């Protein structure tokens, strides 16, 4: 059994990435995947956001048992609240996705947090610290920490373990409202063990960033020093708790 909390459709090639997601779920036994649709731009326009969320919604309707939607939002846009409420309300999406358009601790995100808490859904935050090639407003663990401390009742997923566990994990250690996924293309042997040592297994979710390297994430769970109970917690129990399934 496997619940993947982090998957994508790419709006530039929606059919191909949708098919890759379905093929992955079928081949590797994924029971549920939380999908957001992204454009390959840092600052999507209102129209791009609407298109992206429309693609997610269409995918949800195509495979309602398998696909749950995450509303992709650019909090710097003046009309983001209406789009977010539409996604979480009428379209029944399960959470919010924040990517590159602003640091996640920017004051503009406070309104996103308020709406997410009102709808009782978590926020998935891209956090990725790179020594080179950092994007202009790309969040890292310290940004997630500030948002989490400002909104202790907001349920947060910090994606990718912040990319560099040694930068991010200690930042969010004292924030029990932050869970993490280990999606992304970096699959160091010790990342998961280090994370669990510092924040415990109950705050770790399986997220793959599919259609990127799904099997790497699967391998990391298989390779980590875990009991069967701990492995099940990561693979689906923690997600059930977070999303109130």
């Amino acid at each position, binding site marked *: *059994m*496997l*619940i993947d909390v982090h998957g994508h459709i790419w709006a530039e090639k929606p059919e191909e990435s949708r098919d*890759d997601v379905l*093929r*992955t779920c079928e*081949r*590797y*036994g994924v*029971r*549920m995947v939380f999908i957001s649709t992204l454009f390959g731009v840092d600052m999507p326009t209102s129209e791009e956001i609407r298109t992206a969320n429309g693609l997610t919604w269409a995918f949800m309707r195509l495979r309602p*048992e398998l696909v749950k939607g995450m509303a992709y939002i650019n909090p710097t846009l003046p009309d983001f609240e209406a789009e977010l409420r539409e996604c979480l309300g009428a379209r029944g999406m399960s959470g919010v996705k924040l990517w590159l358009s602003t640091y996640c601790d920017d004051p503009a995100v406070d309104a996103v947090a308020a709406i997410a808490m009102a709808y009782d859904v978590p926020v998935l935050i891209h956090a990725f*610290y*790179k*020594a*080179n*090639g950092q994007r202009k407003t790309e969040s890292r663990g310290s940004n997630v920490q500030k948002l989490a401390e400002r909104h202790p009742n907001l349920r947060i997923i910090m994606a990718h373990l912040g*990319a*560099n566990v*040694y*930068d991010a994990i200690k930042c969010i250690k004292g924030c029990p409202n932050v869970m993490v996924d280990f999606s992304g*293309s*970096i*699959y*160091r*042997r*010790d990342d998961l*063990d*280090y994370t669990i040592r510092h924040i415990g297994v109950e705050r770790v979710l399986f997220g793959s960033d*599919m*259609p*990127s*390297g*799904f*099997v*790497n*994430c*699967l*391998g*990391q*769970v*298989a*390779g980590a*020093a875990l009991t*069967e109970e701990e*492995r*099940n917690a990561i*693979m*689906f*129990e923690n997600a*059930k708790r977070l999303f109130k*399934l």
Partner: protein
Amino acid sequence: MIFSEFSPQKTRRKHGAAAPLSAGFFDVSAFTGNWPFWKLGQPNMSQLEYAHTRNGVTGGVVSRLDSIFYNDPAEGDEELAAELPAGYLLALSHNPVLPYAREEIRENRLGAAELRLYPSYHPYRLTDPCCISCCREAARAGLVIHIVAKINDIRLDYLWRQQMPAADEIVQLARTVEEGSFILSGFTLSELAGHASKFAPLNNLFLDMAYSGDLLFGYEKIPALFPIERLVFGTYFPILCMESSTMALEMAGLSDDDKDMIGYQNAARLFILT
């Protein structure tokens, strides 16, 4: 909805290959030793051997991570040679800028099977005369020449920035030392895609798949980029996760024959395994 327990082994059997690789895996890029940038969970030879056994890997080529950062890499290589179990081959971690590097490669007193180069950490270019002469010496001594283009993901290099060798340098070295056999490690499939037309025609260049996990269904995509008979299986353990490497090949949508070629047979040909 009913959620049952997750078992990686069951998942491997259910969704992976119809049968395990007939000869097991052979790991062309294994390491032991300490790493300066984080505390490795499994740095010892015995831990590498255990992880290999657990994952169906029957042997490999191993170098010592400490050697990369020693002023005289031989100090680390000697320790590794003394503890290398049967089924494993030694890789020398030489630094071509050292004035005695060429001589030690010629002597090969530790009985190594491979010369492992780390141009992203050591101060030379692959096209420098010192590197070319060491590679020629290695080829004469029958050593495979392994270019480790990077070890750590360069996005994580906030303490020490690796300088990955340029693709053109790799091509030039492989052409200049045409009598040598090369393995190239450290390229993701996304990175490889940009250089495939340069690398693919080099008949003496093998590609280690250890860093290939960045693309979903990567193994299915790579035959369009690079000849399958020159792909070799590596894990980068204990830097990277061994299970990620083995499961990626086991569970790929390739024929069992193709998996066997990549997992073992191509390396067996290269290292003349019996």
